[in-house]
C-alpha cells in the first residue's frame, strides 16, 4: 500500500469514527430527552418510580407473583437494593427484616436482588435472616436504573401514598435511618 493510499484509508476510517461517535452521542441525547425522570436524582418528596418485579421462590426461581407499588398502596414499603457479595447489605437486610416483623402488615421490606437469584434465596432462607421477614424479588434491569442505584445497600422508604420519604445511598447507616423513617411514617395518622 502506498503512503497516499494508506492515508486515504485512514482519513476515511477517521470520518467513519467521527460519524459513529456523533450517532452514539445523538442516540444518548435523544434517550436523555425522553427519560429525564429516570435521571432526576431520587429525593424525598418525589413520587416513587414504578416497580413490577418477580418474587423469587425456592432455588431463586420466580413464583409467578409480582411486586408492584400500586398493589401496596396504604402500606409503607422499604426497598433495599442488594447483592449477595455485598457485606454491608448482608448486615442491613436482616436488621430491616427483623424490624419488619415488629411493623406487622403496616410496612413491608422488599429486597431487590441485583446478582445471583439462587444465592439470594439461600441467604434469605439462611440463619443470618432468622426472625426476619422480607419479600425477595429480582431486579429487571430497569428498577435499579430508575432508583439510581450507584452503591449498595441502596434503601428507599416509600410512604402509603407512593411518595419517596427517604433515600439511603450505601453505608451501614442506611438501615438505621430507614427504620427511623418508617417509625415516623407509622406514627403519623
Amino acid at each position, binding site marked *: 500500500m502506498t*503512503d497516499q493510499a494508506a*492515508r486515504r484509508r485512514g482519513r476515511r*476510517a477517521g470520518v467513519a469514527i467521527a460519524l459513529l*461517535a456523533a450517532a*452514539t452521542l445523538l442516540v444518548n441525547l435523544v434517550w436523555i430527552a425522553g427519560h429525564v425522570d429516570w*435521571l432526576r436524582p431520587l429525593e424525598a418528596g418525589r413520587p416513587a418510580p414504578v416497580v413490577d418485579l418477580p418474587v423469587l421462590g425456592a432455588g431463586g426461581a420466580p413464583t409467578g407473583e409480582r411486586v408492584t407499588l400500586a398493589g401496596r398502596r396504604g402500606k409503607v414499603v422499604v426497598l433495599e437494593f442488594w447483592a449477595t457479595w455485598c457485606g454491608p447489605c448482608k448486615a442491613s437486610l436482616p436488621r430491616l427484616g427483623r424490624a419488619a416483623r415488629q411493623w406487622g402488615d403496616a410496612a413491608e421490606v422488599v429486597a431487590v436482588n441485583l446478582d445471583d437469584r439462587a444465592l439470594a434465596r439461600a441467604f434469605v432462607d439462611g440463619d443470618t435472616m432468622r426472625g426476619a421477614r422480607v419479600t425477595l424479588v429480582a431486579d429487571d434491569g430497569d428498577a435499579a436504573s430508575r432508583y*439510581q442505584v450507584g452503591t449498595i445497600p441502596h434503601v428507599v422508604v416509600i410512604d402509603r401514598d407512593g411518595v419517596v420519604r427517604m433515600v439511603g445511598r450505601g453505608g451501614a447507616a442506611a438501615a438505621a435511618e430507614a427504620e427511623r423513617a418508617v417509625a415516623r411514617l407509622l406514627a403519623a395518622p
Partner: protein
Amino acid sequence: MSARAIAGGPGFLERWGLALAAPRAALRLADDPAASGRAAGDLLRAIVVVLIVAHTRELVAAAWIAGAVSWRDAWPGLMRAVSGAAMFGLVFVVVATPVVSLCAGARRHLGRDFDLGCVAALVPVTVSLVATLVARTAFADGGLGPTGRALVLLTALGWSGAITALAIAEARRRS
C-alpha cells in the same frame, strides 16, 4: 508509508482511522522515536471520546446527583462511567505491551513497545463504541445479551490480537 512522510501530518482522527484501516502504517508512525508518546495520547483521547459519547447518560446522571445531592453520592456513578469507557482499552494495552516487548527480542524498547500496544488498544475502544451504538439502537436498551457480549469480546480480541502480531513484526524490524 514512511514515518517521516506523515509525521506531524495526520491528525488524531486520521491516526485513529489508520489504526483500524491501515494498521501497518499506524504502527510505523507510532514506532517513530520522533512521535514518541503520541500513540498513548491518542489512546487517552479516544477513551475520553468514548466516555463522552457512549456514557453520556451516566455522566448526566452523576452531574445531576452531584449538584442536587452530593459529590459523594455521584462518585460511584461517575467512576462506573469512567471505568466502563477505559477498562477494555487499558487492560488490553497492559497485556499487549509486555507481549510485544518480549517478542521483540534484542530490539525491544519498552517505551516504543507501549506506543505500539496503544495502537492495538484503539481497536477494543472502537469496538466498544460500536457495541454501545448497536445495543442502544437495535436492542432498545435491553443490552447485547451474553451471546452479543461474547461476540463483541471475540471480535475485539481477534482484531487487536492481529494488530499486536503486526506490532511485534514492526518492533523486530527496528534498526
